[in-house]
């Protein structure tokens, strides 16, 4: 078990969200379904790889690396 930030997830790798960094975007991320205990999976990378598409809950959400770095994820090594 290892705790990483969501932008470090490999393609198709999944984990459990353990924390959302407090700050300006915390509320917005929670609203979109990024919450402690939720399963998160990296599905796609944009051209250039700097924008990431995650599956969380039943939704597909695109985030930039900067935003994804606010999400802590517990993964199984």
């Amino acid at each position, binding site marked *: 078990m290892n705790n990483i930030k969501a932008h470090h997830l490999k393609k198709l790798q999944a984990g459990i969200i353990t924390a959302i960094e*407090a*700050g*300006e*975007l*915390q*509320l*917005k*991320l*929670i*609203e*979109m*379904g990024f*919450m402690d205990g939720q399963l998160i999976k990296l*599905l*796609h*990378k*944009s*051209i*250039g*790889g*700097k*924008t990431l*598409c995650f599956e969380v*809950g*039943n*939704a*597909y*959400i*695109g*985030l*930039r690396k*900067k*935003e994804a770095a606010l999400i802590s994820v517990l993964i199984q090594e």
Partner: protein
Amino acid sequence: MKKTNLYLIGNPNVGKSSIFNKLTGLKQSVGNFAGTTVEKKIGKVTIGEENYQIIDLPGTYSIFGNTEDEKITTKQIINTEQETDIFLYVADANSLFRNLLLFSQICNYGVPIVLIINQWDTINEQNIKFSVDELSSQLGIEVIAFSTKSKSIKAIEQAILNTKKEKKTCEYFNNLKQPNLNIENRKIAANYTLDCYQSVGKLMQNNEVTQSKKFTEMADKILMHPLWGLIIFVGVLFILFQTLFSLSSFPMDAIENFFNTLSIATSDFLPKNSLWSKLIIKGIIPGLSGVFVFTPIIALLYILLSGLEETGYMSRVSFLLDGLMRKIGLNGKSIIPMVGGFACAIPAMMSARTISNKKDRLITLLITPLMSCSARLPVYTILISLLALKSTYLASYQTLIFLVLYLSGILFAIIVALIFKSILPADKSGFFILEMPQYKKPSIRNIMQTTVNKTVEFLKKAGIIIFIVSIGLWVLTNFGPPKKMAAIESSFPLNNEEINPKKDSTILSNSYAAILGKKIEPVIKPIGYDWKIGIAIIASFAAREVFVGSLSTIYASQSSSDNHQVLHKLKNATSENGLPTFSIATICSLLVFYMFALQCFSTIAVMRRESGKIKWALIQFLYLGVLAYGSAFLVYQLLK
């Protein structure tokens, strides 16, 4: 008694608009929410014997939304009159848990509410682990499983009646404390949101839907692939424009022929030399024909673009291109205004509101008019036809030139964006969070309704301007200094039977239009235009689509034949030295001029409103003007 207002509310992309269209049919109008620029769609619906007003609120994920659109929705929730108003909450069955967050927050305000679970048809029945009736009794309100495919809206209507009669409010979430909406206190807002989710989670414990997303997942493997996705996007754009031009040519010819016949019939019917018949035959009919002819192509563009948006594909493109767009100072979300700009810059610029970074949004606004909008189509079409390319290859050449014009627009948008990116101060605020909805089959009815509304709007706006401009132009081209006009009248013998082309042409070259046109000739000569084209450009300053109608009105004044087709008149036009007015150099110069020039008052007004400053509207108008004149000059000088 006060009329009941129905408010459609929900997350973005849940199908509120299709439900709105289904409920109201064509009885809808568009306005603005008081004191804002946010579009307000209002419709009328009669249920039983009572009339209701239905309002489509902007989609939002929660009551803490901070864009102008989202704030409208929050304000409405707080200010709702519990005695008379009813909320129709639309949730997407595919993402019920997330969708019920806003629902729980609204319920907290104790308003009568109906829950409509939309897209019910897209979930596999085996995966539905709950009954709607059970959910309805748990919540204490009407709950409807709905699919926009279903023809009947009876269930929704019945639910509205029941809710109104019994004032049904949902008390399930009463344990939540009504929040302080002060967004500054983010910690409290975040905790409140988590509490809401917890309550929703408890409700959904036995009710969650596990749907199959096989199609979306499979399609995304290709459409969201960095390489294949990009190739497909370029292909989609190409097919879009190819379809546009091949499908629209037949109805366009039909409309042109109709106006042709109308014009001949009218000239047979009206007295030949009366001033009024000249106004109708040579002013109004050619002017209107110049716009109506392009209705098919504009309607088709709206059909194709709104169809594309409805499928959910465009948000994938936003995601895919985000990295590339950032390199040029834009944002993945800029792609929606940019593609929308191919139809019309005005709604396109308003759709840039979803971009939260101020600099990204400003640059998007600044470059959107560089996308060739539908109003330029009439101008391009007529100019390209004037190039008279070999007829056997005409169709494909035409598409190719169109493609070059569209691509040049995009290329210059990139260059301009790069320039503004380096000039404007950096803005670190804002974020990129974008939901990609499940793919949906677009609803034909929905697309048709949007198209009809937008096309009628276009025709009304353009029709009125063109009507006024045609009359103005007719006055300018048929009247001149009284002394000169009297001299012309006396030098031509009076003949009531026939229109004398030589006389008409003499009147034109001595008219007020000629006087004005010749004044500006020194400015437009270097870019290849004579005074008549100059007048048409001035006439189309408020709206570029006026150009074709104006040319046709101006050249109708000296047309000798009964052929009223614009193209024919322009092909035969010659300048004073006997050479064709529309040489290849002049046509190409006009093409690039219209590609850049911001000849649209509405765009200028929207830019001022959206950027919040008149300064930006002026900067935009000026930079596009300089670009238009400069490139037209270069093209003409190189080709002449």
